[in-house]
């Protein structure tokens, strides 16, 4: 017996999830799903199946429909469910399968880290007002989302000395060499978070992230240019690359 959302978009696959019921896990993941998809203004093109595994890192599998997401959390660690699931969902929403290997892939990882922090911060408020009924004492738990996000943000930003563009200029080589550098992608995410919390519509442009071949962009500035070029000029979406440029790059 798995637990599937009413619209069939999310299914929590049975397994050893600890003391939590599948219904409560589904409710937590659904609230994260609603928060991020509403910010993106888009939904995944296929249902998502979420399974528990006992490896260290969560993962979304390439080339499978329904999408298969594996989470490495369990029991009633609701913030960690939100954190891991939002990260993997962001990969899905940004079309992670289209260009798998390129030097700017760290940016997608940073955005996914940002998605996790963004959803946690938003749910901290949302659960106070509209706690999911299937989650026991969700309203009382809500502040823990904020604390979980804050502790990660603070840990990431503690490693930055001086202003952010200088830090970025000194560290972009390491990011390009290792896209899974969680400390550095975390710094980028924490730096972008205030703007995305202020203007959630910035997420809309992220749908187009993997819609061109980034291998043609030798530097990150060029990557942002290509991203901009693919965005409709008549909307507001082109603000996103420019905002990111303004935060990360030295003018």
């Amino acid at each position: 017996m798995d637990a599937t959302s009413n619209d069939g978009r999310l299914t929590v696959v049975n397994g050893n999830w600890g003391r939590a019921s599948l219904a409560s896990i589904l409710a937590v993941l659904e609230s994260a799903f609603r928060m991020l998809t509403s910010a993106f203004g888009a939904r995944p093109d296929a249902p998502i199946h979420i399974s528990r595994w006992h490896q260290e890192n969560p993962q979304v599998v390439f080339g499978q429909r329904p999408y298969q997401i594996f989470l490495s959390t369990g029991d009633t660690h609701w913030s960690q469910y939100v954190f891991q699931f939002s990260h993997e969902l962001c990969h899905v929403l940004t079309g992670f399968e289209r260009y798998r290997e390129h030097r700017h892939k760290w940016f997608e990882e940073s955005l996914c880290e940002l998605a996790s922090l963004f959803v946690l911060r938003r749910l901290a408020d949302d659960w106070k007002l509209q706690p999911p009924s299937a989650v026991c004492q969700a309203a009382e738990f809500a502040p823990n989302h904020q604390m979980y996000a804050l502790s990660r943000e603070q840990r990431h930003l503690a490693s930055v000395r001086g202003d952010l563009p200088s830090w970025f200029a000194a560290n972009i080589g390491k990011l390009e060499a290792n896209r899974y550098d969680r400390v550095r992608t975390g710094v980028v995410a924490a730096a972008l978070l205030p703007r995305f919390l202020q203007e959630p519509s910035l997420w809309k442009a992220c749908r187009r992230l993997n819609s061109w071949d980034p291998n043609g962009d030798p530097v990150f500035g060029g990557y942002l240019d290509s991203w901009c070029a693919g965005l409709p000029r008549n909307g507001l979406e082109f603000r996103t690359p420019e905002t990111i440029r303004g935060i990360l790059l030295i003018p």
Partner: protein
Amino acid sequence: MSRRWGFYGREDEIGRLLDCFRRQRWFFGAIRGRRRIGKTALVQQALATHLEDDPRGRRCLMVQLPDSTPADFAEVFRSTANQSGLEGLVPEMSEARTLPAIAAAIGSLCTKGVIVALDEFQTCLRGPLRALPSLLQSQVDYLQDIETEGGIIVLGSVQAKMEMLLQDSRTPLFGRTTFNLNLGPWDLRTVFHVCNLHRAHDPKRFLTLWTLFGGVPQYWRHFAEIENIDPIPDWRDWAAEVCASLFLRTGAPLHQEGEMLLQHELRRTSLAILRVVAERTRCSYADLRRAVPEVTSPGPYLKTLIHDLRLIRKDLPLLAGDGARRARYSISDPFLRAWTAALQHACMAARTRPSAEVARLLIPRLSTLEGYAFEELVHLATEEVSSAGTSEFPVTAPVGGYWKRPRRGGEIEIDMIARNEGTRRVRFGSCKRNPREHDDESLASFRRHVKRFLQTDEGKRFSKWDQEWALYSPRFPPLQRGRLETDGWICRDLLDFRHRLTRSDAGATGAFVVSDKVAGRG
């Protein structure tokens, strides 16, 4: 009682049960664990959580097998089914007056999706209910051949008997179980959590309770239910009141618990051996032979107590081979150790003397036991923190002590040795229940013992490793800690372990619906 009792720990075990329930396939499971370890609560909690996923609910019948006749069992079976609202579910229920009819009713209930849990299943190894396993076998074999959502869980508290019933190839139910759960004591993380919730966060009090209960949930629950114990400021008065309330007063919840535990299995000679081990806390084979001269060969009894009943533990010095002749025997269950070494006599004395007076006389013995319990606690905590991934000293091998008494003198006794083969680090530890005992003389002695160890065959490999010298106590006064650390000692106390075990990168734990039965509401 400061707060309502809940369901603590057991994340993996309950997850396994829920995984099984949700599969909606036939199952035949076994849950083993000592008396009071929480087998029934585990099943009840899993069923309560499962209700959230399947609002139709899995109906469950939990029957405790009585140690009496089939007719009595039939009475218990029908009455429990009646109370669970299952009496009319299958026609066989009204006919359940003999063992074959009970087995048939169990089978029919399972075909209706009911989970039947048979508690104290070890009862049917011998005696009037011994035909039950064979009768169940035919039901189990039938049920696994048809598509049914029901299941049978057998629960038992005597490990050896359960193993004989389910794992001996000559028995009817051999090879039938679809899952097996061995329920051990709570892990330390859970015990620390429970202590924080139920007013025992002071390390000294934690150690006392650990010495008395180990990780057995029901005993902690009894402690949590003692009224008006918080305001007692002095540890001695507090410990005396805990002992009096739980063990010594007439009607105290654990007044007869030790006897019940021992009566389950032990014969006279085994009991005599157990007592010798308890009185000495740790003893060698030679000690045993001297103490029980009427038993010419304690070996077979020891084997039963160690391997079959798991009441006694055989420890060897760390790094000594299995064949080493320096084994020490000790009681493996903290409650049983405290009972046989101190509480049993006190309970008897309390029949003729005021319980408060007996409790006060018990304290010195309890303090001695705490010393041994603390050493074990440090071993356990070092391993558990390492496996939680929050350790400053991750270990790659079991943590233990070392001892050697050469004939020509130069005794070696080291409380704790932890090692990491990968980084070539070794940590030597000295454990003292009272931090003041880490004095100059004790530190010099500790150094001498380690130096001798490094010259032994087992120890010389560590002479070129990074060596760390650690001192352990339940709680170090800040001044003393500062002084010792300035001198290069590593000081660790129970607060350090608690911090490392309860710190979680997984974030806060959300609440969950606790079963009414577990919480004592139904």
